[in-house]
């Protein structure tokens, strides 16, 4: 009940300034104002034509006569130059654009996104092509309001060779600019936990064809969640502080699957209890090319009726450095993130009815990645400038006595060729090392594009 009261208060606190500021911030115009714009535009067009006619007439009448007989002060038409007419034309174009951009409609609706198609040949599975498209819709009805919607459309084949198509909503939120340092919003949003999901996973940004273990399906970091958020940034001299906070439904604890009990399900947006997840991230940029951050999220994750509360405390640290290094002749990118996921100790299948219990353990997992890339942007050869070499080490540890427990590490080497700033062809080879399961080295080819 206390949680519900707090949430209601939070929503009201968020919506009150939104509603108040909306009255002053709207940029829509009435039909009368629009008609007035059109009349003004028509009047300006007539003035231009009149000026052109007067100038042509003046030129025709004054050229034959002797200039000495015409005092300079009595020749106003000659004062209107082609430059003046160009200026008026420019003003008209600006006015026309202002009128059209102020109209309600699709002018502030942008459809962007990304797409990828590729091929993977992985040990112990059949080789396959894969493809996916991820459109994003941005609608900005006013300068302060933004609506976003995004989804992933893809195809996949599971380990039993069953093919399926997928349609996953990843973003459906509304946000409001409170001031220069704060934005508030709510809906289904990408959780600011670490940097990967928020910044690096689109195929035209990710320099390798697959995701690090901790941020992939079955990983330990949250992706999108339903809730409310506030985020912003503030300058600190020449440095910068960035901050995010959110309250969301949070992940659900898997309790009855013998192969996954104790893991967190981040894909189920329905909350299975009355507790909410609270989290955030704080980042610091001492210089523009370097960002370091710390993220945390706390939630009670047991479904109602499980019998006891189970805490899940997630933490992450991240660093991202991108710098042109002249002695090396190009741009170096270094990224690393580490995630800890601690689920408190609890007994699963306590009465043995599910066939795998009773089993008691605390599911404390961790993992991360470190990536290094180099692109010779200062090379004189244009083709060479478009190549980028990438290396990534990633790993994830989960308790070996827990269902699905594994110690896995991977070494991935890749070469990218940038066709345009947002279109890339990637080739990569991944060396896999598992402690429990069989190693699955993989060869990838992928074309990624940002639209």
């Amino acid at each position: 009940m206390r949680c519900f009261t707090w949430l209601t208060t939070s929503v009201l606190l968020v919506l009150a300034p939104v509603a108040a500021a909306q009255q002053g911030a709207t940029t829509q115009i009435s039909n009368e104002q629009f008609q007035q714009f059109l009349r003004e535009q028509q009047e300006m067009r007539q003035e231009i034509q009149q000026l052109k006619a007067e100038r042509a007439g003046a030129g025709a009448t004054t050229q034959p006569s002797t200039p000495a007989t015409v005092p300079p002060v009595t020749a106003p038409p000659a004062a209107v130059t082609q430059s003046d007419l160009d200026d008026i034309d420019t003003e008209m174009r600006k006015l026309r654009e202002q009128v059209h951009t102020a109209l309600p409609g699709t002018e502030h609706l942008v459809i962007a996104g990304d797409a990828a198609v590729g091929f993977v040949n992985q040990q112990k599975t059949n080789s396959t092509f894969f493809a996916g498209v991820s459109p994003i819709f941005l609608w900005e009805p006013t300068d302060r309001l933004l609506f976003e919607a995004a989804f992933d459309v893809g195809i996949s084949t599971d380990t039993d060779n069953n093919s399926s198509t997928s349609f996953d909503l990843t973003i459906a939120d509304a946000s409001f600019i409170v001031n220069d340092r704060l934005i508030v919003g709510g809906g289904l949003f990408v959780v600011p936990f670490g940097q990967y999901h928020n910044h690096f996973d689109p195929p035209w940004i990710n320099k390798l064809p697959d995701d690090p273990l901790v941020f992939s399906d079955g990983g330990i970091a949250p992706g999108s969640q339903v809730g409310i958020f506030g985020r912003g940034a503030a300058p600190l001299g020449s440095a910068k502080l960035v901050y995010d906070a959110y309250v969301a439904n949070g992940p659900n604890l898997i309790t009855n699957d013998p192969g996954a009990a104790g893991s967190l399900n981040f894909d189920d947006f329905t909350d299975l209890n009355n507790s909410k997840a609270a989290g955030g991230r704080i980042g610091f940029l001492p210089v523009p090319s370097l960002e370091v951050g710390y993220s945390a999220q706390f939630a009670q994750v047991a479904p109602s009726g499980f019998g006891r509360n189970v805490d899940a405390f997630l933490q992450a640290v991240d660093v991202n450095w991108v710098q042109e290094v002249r002695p090396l002749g190009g741009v170096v990118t270094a990224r690393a993130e580490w995630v800890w996921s601690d689920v408190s100790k609890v007994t699963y299948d306590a009465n043995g009815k599910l066939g795998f219990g009773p089993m008691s353990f605390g599911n404390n997992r961790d993992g991360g990645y470190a990536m290094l890339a180099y692109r010779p942007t200062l090379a004189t050869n244009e083709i060479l400038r478009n190549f980028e070499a990438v290396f990534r080490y990633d790993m994830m540890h989960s308790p070996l006595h827990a269902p699905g427990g594994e110690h896995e590490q991977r070494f991935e080497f890749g070469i990218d060729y940038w066709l345009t700033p947002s279109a890339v062809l990637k080739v990569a080879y991944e060396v896999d090392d598992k402690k429990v399961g069989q190693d699955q080295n993989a060869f990838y080819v992928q074309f990624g594009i940002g639209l």
Partner: protein
Amino acid sequence: MSTKTLAILLVAAGFTAISGCGENTQRSSISDTQASAAVPEKAGAQLWAENCSRCHNIRPPQSFSDTQWQAITHHMRLRANLTGEETRKITEFLQASH
């Protein structure tokens, strides 16, 4: 009051203190300017290069129209934690570079 509720309230208070919640956009712009008065102001082109390239290759200004850039920089302000001043300068630069 539970520890969790207290923690959430502390986070909210921190946000309010940092962001100056309740100020209007104009006032916060002034405070931004005052806060950064000791360091040279950056132009839109520099902010565009610094902030965009930290995550991805820079998209040329010709990639989108003026109104599209406005929505996209609004989206990137949300996604990349840009300040309002940074967003305005980057948008003006992109719109002027067509």
